[in-house]
């Protein structure tokens, strides 16, 4: 690993100035470092300069009012997982945090950084002996035709089938979260979280709609009635501390037996945080039973393209969603 310049400013404005002073993709914002430092050790990432955000006090705030939550991007996953207002009023969000990683890593990783966590595809993380369009554009995809047990059922292209590995964003995308972003001149814009991650298409190395020098400063989530009866159901190879084989974030609002609102995010199975909009539409206005949940799951996975090694995750993904819907119903 080559050495790297490092700065640790005390406010996000100063961090943006530091970033602007050394433009280009080799200068990177650094949160907890649990992805970036890991990939530097593997030689997949090789920044020349790091701007550490973890001392930026203005990125550390958690704010809740009647309309929305606002989480500073520098808040750690561990802190947000145990925030009393989140745990009480939005169980899916708390669960998508504490079911991720380990307690140690959650104490380090920031929520802003977590949104940008990079794929765990072993070919991406592997050596140059394995071509990877995400790591080295144009070299090919080793997963297609290779070992693909953990690869994407939804959203893949002939250039990349790497799974987006995060959990938090799966809940956030289902609940209409918005991110606040600041550019080098301090100018701010907001975009729906659903707009943050890109489909791999023919450019899998371009993972988000952010410019190199843009910084996520906050995540905002509206307080929806469906947040209360919500769950994040995560199925893994082992009970804890593993990435999802399949997950589902679900929220429900039911009145007089009719579904008023339903939210469905799918994780571990797609190339980006996946909102199952058509499945939501199928359930709205009707009753939620195991049978209608199964119909919704079949709609959610209708576009799935399983391959030889990951076919089992199609049935697993549908069962995970059905169980999540039934779990959320019990929380009404």
């Amino acid at each position, binding site marked *: 690993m080559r*050495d790297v*310049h490092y700065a640790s400013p005390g406010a996000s404005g100063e961090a943006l100035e530091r970033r602007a002073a050394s433009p280009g993709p080799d200068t990177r914002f650094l949160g907890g*470092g649990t992805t970036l430092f890991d990939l*530097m050790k*593997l030689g997949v990432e090789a920044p020349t300069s790091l701007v*550490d955000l973890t001392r930026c006090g203005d990125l550390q705030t958690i704010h809740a009012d009647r309309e929305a939550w606002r989480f500073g991007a520098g808040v750690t996953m561990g802190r947000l997982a145990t925030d009393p207002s989140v745990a009480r009023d939005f169980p899916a969000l708390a669960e998508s945090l504490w079911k991720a990683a380990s307690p140690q890593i959650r*104490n380090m990783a920031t929520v802003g950084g977590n949104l940008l966590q990079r794929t765990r595809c072993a070919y991406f993380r592997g050596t140059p002996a394995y071509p990877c369009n995400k790591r080295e554009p144009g070299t090919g995809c080793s997963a297609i035709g290779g070992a693909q047990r953990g690869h994407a059922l939804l959203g893949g292209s002939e250039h990349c089938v790497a799974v987006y590995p995060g959990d938090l964003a799966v809940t956030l995308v289902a609940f209409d979260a918005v991110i606040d972003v600041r550019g080098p001149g301090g100018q701010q814009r907001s975009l729906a979280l659903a707009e943050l991650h890109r489909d791999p298409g023919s450019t899998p190395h371009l993972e988000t709609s952010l410019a190199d020098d843009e910084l996520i400063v906050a995540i905002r989530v509206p307080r929806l009635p469906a947040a209360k009866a919500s769950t994040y159901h995560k199925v893994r190879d082992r009970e804890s501390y593993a990435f999802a084989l399949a997950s589902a974030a679900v929220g429900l609002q039911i009145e007089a037996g009719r579904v008023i609102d339903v939210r469905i995010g799918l994780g571990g199975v797609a190339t980006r945080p996946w909102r199952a909009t058509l499945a939501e539409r199928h359930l709205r206005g009707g009753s939620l039973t195991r049978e209608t949940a199964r119909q919704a799951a079949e709609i959610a996975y209708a576009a799935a393209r399983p391959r030889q090694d990951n076919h089992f995750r199609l049935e697993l993904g549908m069962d995970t969603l059905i169980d999540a819907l039934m779990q959320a119903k019990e929380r009404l």
Partner: protein
Amino acid sequence: MSDMPHELQLDRRTFMVTTTGAAAPVLGAGCATTAPRGPQGASALPCRLTVNGRSESLTLEARSSLLDVLRERLALTGTKKGCDHGQCGACTVHVDGQRVVSCLTLAVKCDGRDVRTIEGLAPDDGALHVMQQAFIDHDALQCGYCTPGQIMSAIACVREGHAGSDDEIREYMSGNLCRCGAYVAILDAVRDGARRMKAGGHA
């Protein structure tokens, strides 16, 4: 630790590395370090860390992990390097009272912060921390390599209030792997260590 400079202390590890010819290439290949003992790169930064209550002034390269700085610069080899990628928990230490994996912590991030390692647990009177003693009493190890990380994690688990039931201990100790599979005894030790910490006012 004695008052001798770290470089002059001859510990078991130094003895092995310097006297066992075969060990050198093995260590070189398997335990690549991010913390050079020799000259520092141009980007090296002056840092002051408090490690186990002792103030340490160090010039650190930004790429150095806290794990490598603890082991290679401060000779605190109780903290173990397992996977070096945040997957095993053997390198768990406390930074400002919070458990972290030191392999994925840039050492420069700890400038001005308080670091506690397995060496800094026992009180000055020589008695072990009650959690260390619980691991011994329950024989909660076989090879022992993961044990310092298990103990650092267990103490944090109790202080966070996550040792309320066996299932909760399993969940909140899941970041520490034991390749020997001593989990049954580790669970017993953490449960008993939690009881002793509360009884002794350690929590």
